[in-house]
């Protein structure tokens, strides 16, 4: 089993929204960043992976097992952080330890308390008294304290300050020091993913529009900026999308080096996930 997560032709229909033939492959030992606008289908996809929504079609395999048939077995080895906290607010971090001990066979209290200390979280205060950042950190501590092999994280850094985000990212990278472990992380804070994610998968309006390695996207792709005259000389097959701005044209190309060999245009920047998202969604392409 080389792939930790495989999604084939996942479809789900809501009123006014549809996930269409979502395909995702996450190999062992890797971090995949799952990006897209709010409402693009990130959370729906995650909920389907976890089988907490119903009436979806397609096949989802985790550790090579079917996510519905082998749910119990799979869930022992998954750690999850969802957008909304799932613990009753009157519990304390100490109480959570007692609850989780009974849920997971591999629950590691020692590790859990170590994370609480590292994150400076109080053990005996009720969750309702904790700040948003502290709650997120608590959720992350809970998600990784049973030695899971796959972490599924929905916007885990939303609401965290830069220092806390940094700590959390350190933990994620520590987590994949074990090459058997992978992380699937959705975020619209793209800067968090730009460096640490090995794969970037981009969902828009319920469809996967791009899924590539970080290297291809952030090192090979480029954004060309040029004048109207220059733009008109460029072959339509040499770019993916373009956007007409007030003083310039912005063009997304698949390979900076190849493009610069063919055309003598000087300004070719590397892409950031942020401007990639904007160009993919707002850019035009006429054929």
């Amino acid at each position, binding site marked *: 089993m080389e792939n930790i997560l495989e999604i084939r032709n996942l479809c789900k229909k809501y009123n006014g929204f549809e996930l269409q033939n979502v395909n995702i492959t996450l190999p062992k030992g*890797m*971090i995949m960043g799952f990006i897209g606008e709010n409402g693009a289908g990130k959370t729906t996809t995650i909920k389907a992976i976890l089988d907490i929504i119903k009436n979806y079609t397609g096949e989802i395999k985790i550790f090579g097992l079917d996510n519905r048939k082998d749910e119990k077995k799979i869930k022992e080895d998954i750690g999850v952080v969802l957008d909304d906290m799932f613990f009753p607010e009157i519990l304390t971090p100490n109480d959570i330890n007692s609850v989780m001990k009974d849920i997971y066979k591999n629950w590691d209290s020692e590790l859990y308390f170590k994370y609480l200390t590292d994150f400076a979280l109080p053990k005996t205060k009720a969750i309702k008294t904790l700040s948003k950042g502290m709650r997120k950190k608590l959720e992350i501590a809970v998600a990784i304290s049973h030695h899971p092999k796959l972490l599924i994280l929905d916007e885990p850094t939303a609401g965290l300050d830069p220092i806390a985000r940094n700590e959390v990212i350190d933990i994620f*990278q*520590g987590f*994949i020091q074990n090459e058997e472990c992978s992380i699937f992380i959705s975020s619209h804070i793209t800067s968090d993913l730009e*460096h640490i994610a090995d*794969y970037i998968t981009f969902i828009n309006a319920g469809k996967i529009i791009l899924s590539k390695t970080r*290297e291809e996207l952030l*090192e090979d792709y480029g954004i060309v900026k040029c004048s109207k005259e220059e733009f008109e000389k460029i072959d339509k097959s040499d770019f993916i999308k373009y956007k007409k701005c007030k003083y310039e044209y912005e063009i997304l190309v698949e390979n900076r080096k190849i493009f610069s060999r063919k055309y003598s245009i000087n300004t070719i920047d*590397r892409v950031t996930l942020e401007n990639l998202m904007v160009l993919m969604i707002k850019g035009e392409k006429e054929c």
Partner: protein
Amino acid sequence: MDIIISNSSNQPIFEQIKQAIKKAIVTDELKENEMLPSIRNLAQDLRISVMTVKRAYDELEQEGFIKTIHGKGSLVATKNIELLKEEQMKEIERYIDKIILISKSSNISKKEILETFEYLFGEDE
């Protein structure tokens, strides 16, 4: 070994890692057969993706600077002086290309460039 990654550099991160490791090999800071940090360790320490380090190591291996032993890790290959020199020459050629580009665009003659070169190079010796 120092590996300094600039996020604002136009040079890709994997290139920057390659350069740093090559430099350490050329200056003998990394000796023959010395183990390199594991891909995952280096990724964590530099706070970058595993894939980025893997790309750097793969290319270093293709270019003959390091070798990877399955299940053990990567180590510095037997040093090939010619290869290292060739590598340095390529780097120098890149700079010369730049010099030519600038001199042509600003009408500076070859003679002037050569004079400047001799002056500066001589001073260094």
